[in-house]
Each structure stands twice: as structure tokens, then as C-alpha cells.
């Protein structure tokens, strides 16, 4: 073995594709080119099998029974939590709360961290490129408390104006909440700088990592953010399961946001005694098989290697940017210097929704619309865009087909 760190070996994409049963099919008579991974990615056999295995041999309710199955289910569920902790390099499983997804994770922080603390005139600082899931929960918390939402502007590339961000941090800022990666534009935000600036003023930071976790390795202790939210279904795992990482000292001080079973130690009619972390935030029977499937997805992704995934996806991004950029009448929306593997674009004379239908006839799945980020899309003066978002199982050939079909659509509408 060489002691010198080599460039990671290239991915065997054809072999990896065989791990994903859904990719083998034809759509409208054409091989499926699945380029909508930003909305939801596909699941490998290993994830499907882990969920099946759990349901076939382990299922019972967790944290409740003394019988064997309940113990197996509890062990599998808590092993999944430990797997997530390791994936994020969090300090403790007490900091890993299972939720339904990124949206619920952010809502938990809005309801349980912001609402009890916010006073009229306090501020929540976000950016102009956020997904609605990182806007609306704060608007709701603001409406309930009299706090105000502050929005850091973006430039024509789709990058956050960090000077403006810095000046918007104030003595009244209660929380900074930004995307790690923009779902509509692909921008990778300078999250280390954001955390450093906020912490310098004593302000905690929530990062919406839904679009980041599938693309690069994370180390939350190094990143030092206070909350981090992501979903299983964008990480090749099941839908309906997600994670909220929270700094233990903050979670400890937060009241529970939903009441029910599992989040209590004792209940009497004079009042409940809440359970310890993280169970305090997990009222009711959780999505146990989802957590098991998420752990399997993390195993799978780590097996492939996030470094190798990132390298191939950046190649795909460069190739798609060049191929699509050469299509007559096509404008790429979001040209940040640091981007994850997605390309948002508009085509002169062809509405994105028509483009989506036309590409579907070619077996090519993309997202069209405002991507639940209306302010970001409207900033560029368009009502909607088409978005191709790539996973490590995508190929240059699929991007060729995309570019060819987009050019044909443009010709059809001339």
C-alpha cells in the first residue's frame, strides 16, 4: 500500500446503477434518465432489503416491551441513531432527533427554540435563496411572537452577499437559519463563515442540509453549527424519516413541542415529567423502519465513498453546464462559483412546464416550477425554471440526452 494519499479511484457507475432497481425501467418507451435527485433520490437494494428485513423479522414498538421483538426493534432503531451520529460526527446520540424530514426538523426548532424565546423586535436572519421550509416556519414563529424576519440578499450568480449578511447580524438576532446548499440554484453557501460570523455575536445557527448531505461528507463538530436538518429520502433512503441534529445544551433547554408517549418519564394529572434527550422530542411511535432504512442508506453511501461521489458529481456538473450552456436560447439560473450537482435553467420561448412534459416523453425526469423557493426564482425575473439535479448514478450519456431533448423542444416552439 502506498503511504501517499491517492486521488480516489473513479466510480464504476454502470455497476452502481445495478444497485438501484428503479433505474432499470423504461419510461414512455425510453430508458429512464432520472435527473430529479434534488427532489428525491432513488433507493438501492440494500435500503429496500433493510426495511424488508426489519418488517419481516424485527418489528414491534420501541422503548416499551420486554419481549424479544420489542428489544430487537429498539436495538435496530437506536443503532440507526448511532449510525446517524457517526455520519454527522456529532458528539452524542442525545443530539440526534428523528423527525419526518427536514421540514419537521426546522419546524421543531421554530416552535421549541424560537417561540418560547422570541420577544417583539427580535430577529431571525435567513437568506434570499431559502426553500419555503426554511422561510415559512420562521414567519409563523414571527407572527406568534412579534419577532421579525431579516433576509440577506443574493447576487446575480445566486451567491449570498456576505457583507450584507454581516451587517444584518444585530444585537436582536435570535437565530441565523440558512441553507447549506440551495435547492433551486445549487449554490453551496459559505457555512463556516456564516457560523463564525454568527457565533462571534453569540447567535446560534441552523443549517438546512437537505441538499448537502447527499453530496459531501460532514463533520458537525468541525462545522460547529447549532442545528442541522436533513431528510432520508434525498440521501438514497426512505421518505418520511429525517433528522434534527441539535447542540445538546440547546436541546436540553428547549421544551418539547409535541406531547404523547415516549417523550415522558411519568404522567399524572398534576403534570408530566419529560423524558431525557433525544426522546423528549420524539412523541409517539416513530418511523422505526424508516430509521433502519436511513442507516442502511448511510452505510451504502459511505461504502461508495462521499469523496468519490463528490468527484464524479462535480464532473457531471461541469459536463452538464457545458452541454446545456451550448443549447441555443438556454440560460442557466444560478452560476455560483461553488455549486452542488444541479443545473436550473430556462429556455427562451419554452415554458419549463412544457419542457418537463416534453422531456418526460423522452424518459427524462426533471423538476419544473419554483422548486418551493419562490423568492429565489422570482429574484431572477422568471416564474419558474427547469432543474436537472444529478446523483452519482447519473451518466454523461443521460446529460447528452437531456441537452438533445431540450434543443428539440426549443425547435418545436420556434
Amino acid at each position, binding site marked *: 500500500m502506498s503511504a501517499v494519499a491517492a486521488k480516489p479511484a473513479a466510480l464504476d457507475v454502470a455497476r452502481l446503477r445495478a444497485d438501484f432497481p428503479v433505474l432499470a425501467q423504461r419510461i414512455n418507451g425510453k430508458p429512464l434518465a432520472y435527473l430529479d435527485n434534488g427532489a428525491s433520490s432513488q433507493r438501492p437494494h440494500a435500503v429496500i432489503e433493510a426495511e424488508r428485513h426489519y418488517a419481516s423479522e424485527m418489528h414491534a414498538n420501541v422503548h416499551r416491551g420486554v419481549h424479544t421483538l420489542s428489544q430487537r426493534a429498539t436495538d435496530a432503531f437506536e443503532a440507526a441513531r448511532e449510525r446517524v451520529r457517526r455520519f454527522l460526527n456529532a458528539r452524542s446520540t442525545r443530539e440526534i432527533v428523528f423527525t419526518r424530514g427536514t421540514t419537521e426538523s426546522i419546524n421543531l426548532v421554530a416552535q421549541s427554540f424560537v417561540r418560547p424565546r422570541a420577544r417583539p423586535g427580535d430577529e431571525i436572519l435567513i437568506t434570499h435563496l431559502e426553500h419555503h421550509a426554511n422561510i415559512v416556519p420562521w414567519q409563523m414563529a414571527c407572527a406568534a411572537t412579534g419577532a421579525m424576519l431579516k433576509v440577506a440578499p443574493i447576487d446575480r450568480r445566486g451567491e449570498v452577499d456576505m457583507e450584507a449578511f454581516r451587517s444584518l447580524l444585530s444585537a436582536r438576532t435570535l437565530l441565523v437559519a440558512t441553507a447549506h446548499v440551495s435547492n433551486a440554484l445549487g449554490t453551496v453557501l459559505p457555512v463556516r463563515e456564516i457560523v463564525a460570523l454568527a457565533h462571534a455575536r453569540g447567535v446560534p445557527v441552523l443549517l438546512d442540509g437537505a441538499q448537502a448531505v447527499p453530496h459531501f461528507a460532514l463533520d458537525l463538530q468541525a462545522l460547529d453549527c447549532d442545528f442541522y436538518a436533513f431528510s432520508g429520502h434525498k440521501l438514497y433512503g426512505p421518505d418520511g424519516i429525517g433528522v434534527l441534529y441539535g447542540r445538546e445544551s440547546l436541546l436540553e433547554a428547549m421544551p418539547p413541542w409535541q406531547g404523547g408517549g415516549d417523550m415522558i418519564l411519568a404522567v399524572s394529572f398534576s403534570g408530566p415529567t419529560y423524558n431525557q434527550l433525544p426522546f423528549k422530542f420524539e412523541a409517539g411511535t416513530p418511523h422505526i423502519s424508516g430509521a433502519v432504512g436511513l442507516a442502511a442508506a448511510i452505510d451504502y453511501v459511505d461504502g461508495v465513498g462521499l469523496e468519490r461521489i463528490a468527484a464524479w458529481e462535480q464532473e457531471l456538473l461541469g459536463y452538464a453546464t457545458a452541454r446545456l450552456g451550448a443549447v441555443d436560447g438556454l440560460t442557466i439560473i444560478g452560476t455560483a462559483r461553488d455549486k452542488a450537482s444541479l443545473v436550473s435553467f430556462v429556455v427562451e420561448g419554452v415554458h419549463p412546464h412544457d419542457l418537463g412534459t416534453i422531456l418526460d416523453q423522452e424518459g427524462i425526469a426533471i423538476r419544473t416550477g419554483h422548486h418551493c423557493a419562490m423568492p429565489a426564482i422570482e429574484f431572477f425575473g422568471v416564474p419558474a425554471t427547469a432543474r436537472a439535479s444529478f446523483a452519482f448514478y447519473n451518466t454523461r450519456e443521460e446529460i447528452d440526452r437531456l441537452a438533445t431533448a431540450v434543443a428539440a423542444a426549443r425547435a418545436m*416552439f420556434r
Partner: protein
Amino acid sequence: MDLKELYRDVILDHNKRPRNFGRLEPPAHSARGHNPLCGDQLTIYATLDGEVVSELRFEGSGCAISVASASLMTEAVRGKTRAEIGRLFGLVHDLLTRSDAPAPAELGKLAALSGVHGFPARVKCASLCWHTLNAALEGAGVPVSTE
């Protein structure tokens, strides 16, 4: 489904050169329609002369199906009574959602929308203008949404 069934020449033409595009000032009735799925936004303006729609315009932005459908609608309903328009909407709705029946002759050029039924995700695009016209004529004044 064949794309040419959806994007017929009539549709492409009305998308590129929408008829009766523009606005009418009050006292013309108006209503706004919105399709949140794709961001289509339409405003329909209608002048009523008794029960008869004597003038009709629309403005907004949207996909080819929504723009062409609105353009075709403005041509089809001008000079008709509210009751006649209601009946025509029923026929258009059947055309968009049923695959079995041939388009009745009274639909005229609106029959160009017959390909939409093969693309269920696009039915709302084609029907948005009709729902919005209904709202304008009822004078409800509340924005119409397809969701």
C-alpha cells in the same frame, strides 16, 4: 402518448400569438387565477352586456397549454350568454378529462385541446382560464387556485 397530440399547431400558434391579450378597465369584471404547481398566472377581464359577454381579454404568463387555452377561450365565448358559457365549460371539462367521447362540433377550435386528456398532469393548465372566467363572471373577486 404522442406529443403532437398535445402540442397541435393550433396550440403552438395561440401560445406564440395569444388572441385578445391585454386588459380591460373597470367596470369590466376581472378575476385572477393561479396554478401553484407550475406558476401559471392569469387575469381574465370580461365586459357583460346584460347576460352576454361582449368583450373578453386576458393577461398573465404560463405554459403553452394554459396560454393557448385562454386564448382559444376568449375567441370561443365572446358574444355568448353566461348560461351558454357554463355549458361550454362543461363540454371543455369533459374533453380534458375523458378519453372516450369524440369532441362535439360546438366546441369548434377548442377541440384542439383534446390531446390534454392523455397528460393528466396538464389538465389543470388547460382548465385554469375557465375557472378564472367563472370567478370573474360571478364577480366573487377572490383569487382562483387550481390547488
